[in-house]
């Protein structure tokens, strides 16, 4: 911090000198290469710094501040009480199925179900497509889900799950499971799980591509040496492939986790602003949006703050692990 301050001071001083020099004024104070470097750094750093301060730091500080301000402008913890006691956040009967269980639990379910499946599925696909001819076509097809806007993904899910035109209910109807031959996104029993499972294909492309790239960085010598030693394939996977893919795994897990915590668009597009029937697929970001559009800015700021804290902790923990292990 002290060093940054000194650099900034030096930079500002140098800028003033440069300005005087540019105007043809006589510059009394000589400045050496170190000062010029500082000035240059400041010039190039300033735009990014300004953008960060105004577009990231200021809104975050303002949001946190707003979360502690009541409707009359007075400082309060009431917004936190409102949000945390709202049945939309945590349903008092959250042990009972079907949903709504509360947005906190719903986001937790997204992480618990979507994260492992999409990561492992991507890894599995990357492994089986490693040495396959024409695999890039298959990978591109799978990656299409990733480049599809999530709002479009949500609309696609509406069609997939709608009884009648939808392929999912039709499949279950055809195999005789009539209880699942329904409009999945309409019923409380199936809406949340439908969205989670339905979004796996949208996200798997990400882990597939990152793992595929990671696999190409593992030297073939390792596998050949292991083969000569008679190591079984499963052991090779756990002892060579998986450990060497650790940096990729951490990137994928981090990005997926962040996506799941702040998930909004796919839920909004598929389930509308209430997050499904009786809020059965509601998530924190959508809850924040609903607070916002109904003029409850304090509670909206609370949810935003909670989301920021959660993502911050998750990211910090994962990055620390990544730095430590690598």
């Amino acid at each position, binding site marked *: 911090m002290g060093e940054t301050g000194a650099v900034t001071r030096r930079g500002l001083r140098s800028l003033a000198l440069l300005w005087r020099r540019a105007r043809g004024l006589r510059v009394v104070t000589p400045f050496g290469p170190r000062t010029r470097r500082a000035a240059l750094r400041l010039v190039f750093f300033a735009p990014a710094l300004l953008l960060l301060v105004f577009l990231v730091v200021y809104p975050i500080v303002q949001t946190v501040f707003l979360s502690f301000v009541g409707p009359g402008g007075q400082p309060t913890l009431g917004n936190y009480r409102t949000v945390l006691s709202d049945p939309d956040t945590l349903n008092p009967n959250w042990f009972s199925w079907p949903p709504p269980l509360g947005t906190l639990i719903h986001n937790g379910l997204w992480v618990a179900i979507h994260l492992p499946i999409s990561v492992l599925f991507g890894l599995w696909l990357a492994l089986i497509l490693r040495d396959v001819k024409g695999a890039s076509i298959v990978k591109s097809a799978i990656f299409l889900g990733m480049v599809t806007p999530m709002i479009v993904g949500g609309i696609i899910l509406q069609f997939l799950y709608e009884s009648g035109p939808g392929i999912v209910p039709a499949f279950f109807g055809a195999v005789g499971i009539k209880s699942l031959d329904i409009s999945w996104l*309409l019923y409380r029993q199936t809406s949340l799980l439908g969205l989670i499972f339905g979004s796996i294909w949208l996200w798997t492309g990400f882990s597939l591509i990152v793992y595929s790239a990671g696999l190409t960085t593992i030297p073939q010598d390792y596998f050949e040496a292991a083969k000569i030693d008679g190591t079984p394939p499963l052991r090779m996977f756990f002892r060579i492939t998986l450990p060497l893919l650790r940096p990729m795994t951490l990137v994928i897990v981090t990005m997926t986790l962040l996506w799941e915590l702040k998930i909004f668009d796919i839920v909004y597009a598929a389930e509308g602003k209430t997050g499904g029937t009786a809020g059965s697929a509601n998530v924190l970001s959508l809850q924040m949006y609903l607070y916002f559009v109904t003029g409850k800015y304090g509670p909206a700021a609370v949810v935003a703050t909670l989301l920021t804290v959660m993502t911050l902790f998750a990211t910090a923990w994962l990055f620390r692990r990544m730095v430590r292990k690598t």
Partner: protein
Amino acid sequence: MSSGGADYVPPKTSGRLIAIIVALLIVTNVITAVGVYYGTAPKAAGETITVIGPWASTEMQKFLPVLSAFTNSTGIKVSYNILRQEDLKLVLPVQFAIGRAPGDVIFMTSSFIKENGPGGNATDLTGVVDKSAYAAGALDPVTGTDGKIYGAVYTGKVKPGFWYRQSFFTAHNLQPPTDWISFTNLLTQIKGISGIVNPIVSGDTDGWPLSDMTEHFIATYGGASMHRNLTAGTEMWTSAAVHDIFANRIVPLLAASDFSPPLKWDSTALNGWWANQYALYFMGSWITGMVPDPTDLRVFSLPPVSGVTPGVVFGADYFFIPKYTTKLDAAKQLLRYLASKDGQTVQVKQGGHIATVLGIDTNAYPPVDRVVAQTLTGKDVLPDLDDTKGDPFQANFWSQLKALWTSADPAGDLNTILAAIQSKA
């Protein structure tokens, strides 16, 4: 010359260069800012005003003749922009906060106008809108808590009851019901007809058709007074009287699969109903503009019970002038026209609309709308409950009704659902 970037020493001329670059950046930014400001700022001169409304497609085509008629009579041009009211709820507060408005006359929910009027974002129209042109109480939904009028009522749509195809009823020898028993008998009869999926189709999983239908049950069996009290919040959704209407009228029909599950798209419901997969469709009077043959349409209300004064929900369209319009006089002229007999006559002639101002010649209506307009006669006219209350009640109401409609045990879930509705009332 050193090889490392860290040892790089800029030549002496770089100071001047940097100063020039910074100066250029500042100058170009100022030019851009000025250009953007004057390029997008509303022009003071020229009388083209902007109307924002929710109607698109055929509904828009039926509204544009009204604006053309206004232009012909005043010379003021009108530009019509489509924006859904759900989107306006997001756009307007932000625009108002910076003292701007996206339109000069805006169609919006009465709850929004009522809230934003006293809040200083809507023009006070007391004295501009002719109260006597409307039925008593028609302007109440846009009258602020300070007693001032902040909006006007355009035409509206009645939600008279269950629509059916006369040809289908004739083919199967069905009769509109006269009491509750004959209504349930009719549903049983319909269920026995080959090709019928459910007797009543429930449209659009957004939830508003369910709320319209529920309101009709309340206005019929709880009466207009219960509907008004629920709107005002003086009656609880968990009260015994409200509970009984759900438990004795709606839940038994749900349990007997008389209603279809809510269908995702309006068109699916409409097409299925028109193809005789469903016999009855609860919808507003705008349905007359949505079917291939309106002459085959008939409608019946739920049969009333003695001792209860039934009401009929009339979903009016409200509009207001934002405080930040730069063309107040022209906007007021348009507002007066839309709230006049002349303006509304042009609109009702297009079909699908019912006038709110008094004294419209019934001959102005197309035949099918004339029948709908007559259903209002002698009935207590009610504003749409959830439109009047707005969010968060409205979204929650729709969502909870979907839960009731899709519940495997509607009777068992009823209390929880009514309590959830009450929690946002």
